[in-house]
C-alpha cells in the first residue's frame, strides 16, 4: 500500500470521526454549562421547584413547568399521530394497490418536508382560530393547537416506518390467516400488527422523540408562559420555546440566565437520548426476525 492510499484512508477516517466529535461536543458543552449552573442553583430546586422564572426579579429555577409543557404538547401530538399513522400504515400495507401506494407515499413525504416554521404559522393563524369556535375559553396561545399540528407533522414518520415493518411480514402468514377464514381486517389486527410490533414501537418512539424536540410550532403557537398545568387551553411554555425565547433576547453571555438554556437543553437531550437508544436497541434486537 503506497503513501497516497494511506493518506486518503486517514482523511476518510477523520470524516467519520467528525460524528464522534459532534456527539462528544454536544455532551461536553451541555455538561460544562449545566455543572456551572448547578454551582449556583441547587439540583433539588431544579427538579422540584414548581416555578420557572429565571428572567424575572423573583427567580425560580424549577424545570417541572417546562417539562409538563413539553410532555403535554407531545402527548396531544401522539394522540393524533398514532391512530392516524398506524391506520395509514395498515391501509397502505394491506389494502392499497401498488399503484395507490406509489401515489400516497410521495405525498406523505411532502408532508414531512414542510418546514416546521410553516406548520407553526398554520397552527397560529388557522387551527387556533378554528378551535376557538369549538372550545369556549380557549386562549390565543395554548397547548392543543400546536399539539394537533405537531401530530399531523409526525404522522409521516410513524406511518412510513410502521408500514415498512408491516410490509416486511412474509406473505405466508397472511395466507395462513386467510385460509382460516379471517377477513383482511382481522388479519391486519391479529396477525400483521403483532408480527410487526417491534417496528411499530420503534416508529412511535421516534415520533415521540421528534415531538419532544420540536421547536418552531410550539414557539409560535403555545405561548411563553411556563406554568405547571395539564390544561391544554391555556398558554404554556416548552423547553425548546424557552431556549428560543432566551436566544432572541439580550441575555449577557456567562450570566446565570444564559446557563439556564444549557440546563434546559441537557434535560431535553437526556429525554431524546434515552428514547433514541431504546428504539435503536429494539431495531437491532428484533431485526431480521423472518429472514
Amino acid at each position, binding site marked *: 500500500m503506497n503513501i497516497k*492510499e494511506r493518506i*486518503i*484512508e486517514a*482523511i476518510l*477516517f477523520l*470524516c*467519520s470521526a*467528525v*460524528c464522534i466529535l*459532534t456527539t462528544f*461536543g*454536544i455532551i461536553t*458543552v*451541555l455538561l460544562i*454549562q449545566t455543572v456551572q449552573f448547578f454551582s449556583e442553583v441547587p439540583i433539588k430546586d431544579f427538579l422540584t421547584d414548581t416555578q420557572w422564572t429565571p428572567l424575572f426579579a423573583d427567580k425560580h429555577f424549577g424545570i417541572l413547568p417546562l417539562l409538563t409543557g413539553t410532555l403535554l404538547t407531545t402527548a396531544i401530538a401522539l394522540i393524533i399521530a398514532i*391512530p*392516524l399513522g398506524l*391506520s*395509514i400504515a*395498515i*391501509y*397502505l400495507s394491506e*389494502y392499497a394497490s401498488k399503484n395507490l401506494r406509489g401515489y400516497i407515499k*410521495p*405525498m*406523505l413525504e*411532502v*408532508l414531512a*418536508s*414542510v*418546514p416546521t*416554521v*410553516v406548520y407553526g*404559522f*398554520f397552527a397560529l*393563524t*388557522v387551527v387556533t382560530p378554528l378551535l376557538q369556535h369549538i372550545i369556549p375559553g380557549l386562549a390565543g396561545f395554548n397547548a392543543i393547537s400546536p399539539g394537533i399540528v405537531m401530530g399531523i407533522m409526525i*404522522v*409521516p414518520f410513524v406511518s412510513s416506518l410502521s408500514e415498512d415493518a408491516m410490509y416486511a411480514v412474509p406473505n405466508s402468514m397472511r395466507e395462513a390467516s386467510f385460509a382460516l377464514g379471517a*377477513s383482511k*381486517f*382481522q388479519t391486519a389486527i391479529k396477525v400483521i400488527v403483532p408480527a410487526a410490533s417491534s417496528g411499530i414501537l420503534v416508529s412511535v418512539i421516534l415520533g415521540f422523540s421528534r415531538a*419532544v*424536540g*420540536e*421547536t*418552531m410550532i410550539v414557539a*409560535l403557537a403555545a405561548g411563553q408562559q411556563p406554568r405547571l398545568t395539564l390544561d391544554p387551553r391555556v398558554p404554556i411554555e416548552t423547553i*425548546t420555546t424557552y*431556549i*428560543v425565547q432566551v*436566544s*432572541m433576547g439580550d441575555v449577557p453571555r456567562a450570566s446565570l440566565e444564559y446557563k439556564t438554556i444549557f440546563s434546559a*437543553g441537557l434535560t431535553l*437531550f437526556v429525554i*431524546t*437520548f434515552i428514547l*433514541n*437508544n431504546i428504539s*435503536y436497541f429494539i431495531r437491532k434486537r428484533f431485526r431480521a426476525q423472518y429472514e
Partner: protein
Amino acid sequence: MNNESIKTIKDNAFKGWAIFATSVGMIMLAILLIRIGMDGLHRISLDFFTSLPSRRFAQAGILTAWTGTLWIMVTTAIFAIPIGVGAGLYLEEYSKKGKWSSFLEINISNLAGVPSIIYGLLGLEVFVRYLHLGESILSGSLTLALLILPIVIVSTREAIKTVPNTLREASYALGASKWQTVWWQVLPAASGGIMTGIILALSRAIGETAPLIVVGALTYVPFVPKTVLSSFTVLPIQIYNWASRPEAGFAVNAAAAIIVLMLITFIMNGMAVYLRNRWRKNVRW
C-alpha cells in the same frame, strides 16, 4: 346477522376510516397551501424580493432573508458534502466490521435523533464563542452542516450498498488500487443515490429555524451579507419574526415569505425524487 356479515361490515368500516386517515394529512396540506396562497400571493412582487426589512409592513421585503438563505445553503453544502460522503465511504468501503464501526453506527443513529435546537447550543458554544467566529454565516452553516451530516452519511451508505461487488472486482482485476476503484467505479455508480440524499439534506437545512436562532442569526438585518463572517438572517427566521407580530399586515408578509420558502423546498424535493427515479431506472446490474 351472522358472523360473516359482521366481519364484512367491520372490514369495510376500517377501510373507510383508513381512507379518511390517509386523506387527513392531504386535506391539511391542501388547506395550508390554499390559505397561505390566499393570504400571501398578492403580496409577492419584484419589490418584495428587492426590499430590505422594515418596521412598516407594506414596505418590508425579503432581500436580506433570501440572500442569507442562499449563503447558508452554499456554505453548508461545502462543509457537509465532502465530510458526509467521506464518512459514508469510510464506513462502507474501508472500515472493518468491529467495535469502532458499530460505535460509529450507534453514534450516527443517535445524532440523527438529537433535536435541532441542541445543535444550536453546540454551535453557540463551539463556533460562536470558543472559535470566535461570531454570530456569522460561518457559525450558522457549520452548525447546520453537523445537523445534516447523519442524513448525508446514511444516504451515501445506502447508495454505495447497491453497487455490486463484481464492479469492484473487475476494477481490481485491471490493477486499480483501492482508492482508484472507489473514485472511478464506486462513487460514479452510486452518484444518483448520493445526490438525492444531499439535496434532501440541504432542503432540510434551509427550512431549519431553531438552531440558527440559538446561534444568533438576527431578525433584523439591514444589509445583504458580503462575506461568510457577516451577520445574517434567513427566510424561516424572517417568517418566524413576522408571524409572531400582532399586526395583520405582517401575517400577510409571513404568508408571502412562506410561499417563497415552500417553493424552494418543493423544487428541491422534486429534484430529489426525479433523480432517485431516474437513477433506479437506469441502473441495471
